[in-house]
């Protein structure tokens, strides 16, 4: 009976990290989405300066380990701006994911047939209007499969905010393990939670993909 009681206590403790993990992932994905779409647009439709800026962002951020970005945000930038560990970690993850998402959206923007832009301009839309109402909705749909992959990667990368002390699933599992000296149970439960989250995420994204598939 003790075993099951302990197990329940351990599980409840780790479970409190679930919402933190979900929070970090959602913030990071949203921030990354905004950065990704904006940078991809600048890269495809911007002038030489913005193209270079967006390309530099993508190359540099992807070349740096995400943990380094988290440390910079938490130990350097958080000295000037008031940032909790949660926000420092999530924003850093989002900034990093934005670089990968910008590559995904760049490909998507470029694979929208050029005739779509021509037709939009022909009915009197400005370039900005055409990108907003014709190109972007199609690009987002085209990007969905690759974006789903990125979403699961960010979910797993959310463990990295551990290093600045955010109490998400993995950190809590580690705390329990240190206290109970039963790493198998603690990390086993963490594994199951991540597995469940990832499977759920893929299901939701597959549904979205089917729902919004573009027929050419």
């Amino acid at each position, binding site marked *: 009976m003790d075993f099951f009681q302990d197990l329940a206590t351990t599980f409840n403790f780790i479970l409190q990290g679930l919402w933190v993990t979900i929070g970090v992932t959602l913030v990071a994905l949203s921030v990354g989405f905004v950065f990704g779409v904006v940078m991809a647009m600048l890269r495809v439709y911007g002038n030489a300066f913005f193209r270079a800026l967006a390309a530099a962002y993508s190359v540099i951020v992807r070349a740096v380990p995400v943990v380094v970005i988290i440390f910079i945000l938490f130990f350097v930038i958080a000295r000037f701006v008031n940032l909790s560990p949660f926000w420092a970690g999530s924003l850093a993850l989002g900034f990093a994911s934005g670089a990968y998402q910008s590559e995904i959206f760049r490909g998507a923007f470029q694979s929208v047939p050029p005739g*779509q832009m*021509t*037709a939009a301009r022909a009915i009197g839309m400005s370039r900005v209007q055409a990108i907003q109402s014709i190109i972007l909705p199609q690009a987002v749909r085209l990007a969905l499969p690759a974006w789903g992959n990125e979403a699961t990667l960010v979910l797993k990368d959310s463990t990295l905010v551990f290093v600045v002390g955010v109490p998400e699933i993995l950190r809590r599992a580690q705390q329990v393990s240190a206290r109970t000296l039963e790493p198998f149970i603690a990390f086993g439960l963490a594994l199951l939670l991540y597995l469940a989250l990832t499977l759920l995420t893929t299901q939701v994204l597959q549904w979205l993909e089917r729902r919004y598939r573009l027929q*050419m």
Partner: protein
Amino acid sequence: MTTTPILRIDDVYKSFGATQVLKGFSLSIQPQEVVVLVGPSGSGKSTLLRCINLLHPPTSGRIWLEEEEITAPGVNHDRVRQRIGMVFQDFNLFTHLTALGNVMIGLTKVRKMHKKEAHDLAMFELERVGLVDRAGHYPAQLSGGQKQRVAIARALGMDPHIMLFDEPTSALDPELTGEVLEVMQQLAKEGMTMIVVSHEMGFARQVASRVVFMEGGVVVEEGPPQQMFEQPKYERTRAFLRKITDLEGDEK
């Protein structure tokens, strides 16, 4: 004709890099005229249409639309394009929108209509091309002829003063061209001014007020269809028109 032309093209040149496509093209078009533009491929027909609606502004030369010089500096190109409808060879329907959505989006985003008003006008335009029952279909669910009719409805929704057709039936199976030509003929009857790049000689004979033969970026010869088909001034015109008329005959 003494009325002022709705469209006047004066000595237009257009180059892409080192390639000169239009070499001093001039033409005036009267209101309600239907001009069919023919010529061998590479003669600059599509480029001319794209110069007229400023998708590719001319390198030099001037164009007036209803007495406003649209090639003048400072003219808002987007505003000009609203007055010039364009229909493309490969339809270019917006793939993420239904037939109705394709017609509506210009009304809500460009003409700034309210949803309800835009919906009603879009349905009216779909009715004009006989596709009310396909309003909820996506482009992928429509036949080529239906796609092109939706594209025409989309252009009509902007209330254009002149319509440009760039080989509207070239991408269609022969049995589907009829439904598109019928819609165009109906438009012509209603008094729409049209410039049609097409090798549908049956349409040219029946509907055109003028046939313009262009080659090498300039007008070679122009005249009423009967004159152009039966007694053209130049041997080159005769040879070209005979060739495409024969080709058409073979297909049918």
